[in-house]
């Protein structure tokens, strides 16, 4: 299986990079040192954006710039399935796709395709990922002001929410801690990458000493982390914060922001998640501002 956490100098194409989010993200990614070697937008072939050549198809782009380590997609939600298919068929094994509101059926088909091609997918509905030391800024995470929130360090920050990926990194920075990998996994029902997938890979990441997960109500991805910690597959310290207690005061079966943030029956309640994480040995922050202290204790 392909790696989710790529190396410094990795080369990318940007699908849909000429659109609103793509064209605003591109200069910021390039400034950061990330190598975006080509863009793909049907009908825009031949243009050059920020010095990056644009092609009509992924295959045309790769014929010109050679195989790449990944594709960063800014395609709109109903085009994501097609964009993923095109990238996989061109032999790309790593895809990050940002669109919010991708139909869940498409995500199920995408997950199946990605598996068939032995590839990996971050997202959909991810703001992106950042590694300061590796000069990787992939997607639109903290696009306006990356340096405000992210400083180089040893802590991985994993979050369903893009803005809380940045806020958690900022909180660590304000408390003298830096970040190795900051990854928004997205808050969809069946994302391509989960907390568990990343924590397993971070076990072998020399840069990372401990991880923080920002979880929220709904789904079972936090519970899966508890299982992995309990079974010893994850041995580096994990600190967790789970948001969404107040939603228990509101009607059930309501979606809060993210598609996966929904409580159906007893599953997905924040206090239940905290309990199973605590039982597994994960340090759970009751208050968001306590996260840095727990991390500092864990890596002492």
């Amino acid at each position, binding site marked *: 299986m392909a790696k989710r956490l790529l190396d410094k100098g990795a080369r990318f194409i940007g699908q849909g990079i000429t659109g*609103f989010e793509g064209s*605003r993200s591109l200069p910021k990614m390039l400034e950061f040192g990330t190598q975006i070697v080509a863009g793909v937008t049907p009908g825009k072939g031949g243009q050059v954006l920020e010095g990056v050549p644009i092609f009509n198809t992924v295959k045309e782009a790769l014929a010109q710039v050679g195989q790449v380590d990944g594709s960063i997609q800014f395609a709109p*939600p*109903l085009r994501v399935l097609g964009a993923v298919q095109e990238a996989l068929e061109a032999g790309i094994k790593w895809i990050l796709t940002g669109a919010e*509101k*991708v*139909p*869940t*059926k498409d995500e*199920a*088909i995408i*997950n*199946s*395709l990605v598996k*068939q091609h032995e590839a990996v997918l971050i997202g959909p509905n991810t*703001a992106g990922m950042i590694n300061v030391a590796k000069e990787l800024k992939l997607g*639109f*995470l*903290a*696009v*306006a*002001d990356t340096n*405000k*929130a992210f400083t180089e360090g040893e802590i991985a920050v994993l*979050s*369903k*929410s*893009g*803005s*809380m990926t*940045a*806020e958690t990194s*900022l*909180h660590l920075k*304000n408390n003298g801690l830096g970040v190795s990998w900051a990854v928004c996994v997205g*808050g969809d*029902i*069946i994302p391509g990458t989960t907390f568990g997938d990343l924590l397993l890979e971070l076990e072998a990441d020399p840069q990372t000493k401990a991880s923080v997960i*920002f979880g*929220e*109500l709904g789904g*079972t*991805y936090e519970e899966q982390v508890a299982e992995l910690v309990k079974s010893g597959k994850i041995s580096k310290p994990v600190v967790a914060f789970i*948001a*969404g207690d*107040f*939603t228990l005061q*509101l*009607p*059930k079966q*309501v*979606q*809060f*922001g*993210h*598609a996966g*943030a929904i409580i159906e029956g007893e599953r997905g309640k924040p206090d239940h998640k905290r309990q199973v994480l605590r039982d597994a040995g994960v340090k759970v922050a009751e*208050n*968001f*501002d306590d996260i840095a202290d727990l991390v500092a204790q864990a890596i002492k």
Partner: protein
Amino acid sequence: MILYEYEGKEILQKAGIAIPNGQTLHSLEDRVNFPFPLIIKAQVLSGKRADNGGIIKVSSEMELVENLEELFGKIVNKETVEKVLVEEVVEIEQEYYLSLSYDTDTRGSILSFSQSGGTGIEERGVRIFPIDPLNIPSSLELVEGDIPKDLLTKITQVFFDSDALLLEINPLVKVASDKSQESRGRKWVALDAKIKLDDYAKARHEDWNFPPRGVPGYSPTANEMAAKRIDEEDYRGTAGSAYFDLPGDIAILSSGGGVSLTALDALIKAGGKPANFTEYSGNPPKEKVAKLTKVVLNKPNIHGLWVIGTVVANFTDIFETLSGLMDGLRQAQTELGTKFDFPIVIRRGGPRVDEAYTMLKEVKDFDLTLLGPETSVSQAAEIMAQKAKEYEQKHG
């Protein structure tokens, strides 16, 4: 969107899955054209209708009229009954539970199946089979039990074709064989249908003309409906789609899914009492933010307004959205004929935040507190809770 039973059954029927003969009544005036006995079923979104008096068997015209009079307008699990489904009785040989949905463990679609259906399904043994949308036939090969494969295929296909998040048939029944003549040769009938459609797929389903509705077991408030309309009337960015009234005194305008959850939890921990939950995100124009501002302030006894979001927004134009906030505040004052002198605490950041804060520093007609990246969401919550409490003590 969750469909009413009669809407779900229409989808099943179109896909060639048998449902009981019946009709949907919109009022007491509607004539019933089927022989007795009949089952009458209140059309509400929440489950456990039988336990709440929403499903009744009637054997005569008199019983039918009596029960319909009772049922129309009745509150079943906090929802008002506006439609009633009337169906012929189906003679059952065996009941099954069958559903298709998406599952966070397999990160794909699953078929859940039990040899015994009916109410109380939660306690029965349900078996789960992963379904690969790219290979439905071989996925269904693995499904055990005596439901014919062609029926399973039809049900699975309609689940995917209609972009459902959930398709639950409980019960799916095998019709008693000696009665099959009466049930017009049908061997398998879906006695119930619960379908939840994926709102994200709406753009590719022109046939989705379902009237607006709330959530199961809940009747929306006037503010909640007003907030929802803001997004329905203008697709740019998101403002108001998620709005709920809460019993507190601090109006909330929060941004971003994760931050909103963190913020409300933190405010409650700090002793503050939110008057609502709502969220705006993406890049809404200032008119939408102004409208949402007016909705959150449209209630008595507000002791504070908290504008809370990340300080590192990706694309939200902070100058645009905070200009909308000021417009909304001034319009609401005029419309309500009042003066807002309660504390307004703002913690925001992102594109054009410097311009926005420069503009807000010039504002003299409101009590504004401007916070930035040096103040965490939790610290901002404490400041808001404290200021609202002081305001309440001073003004009673």
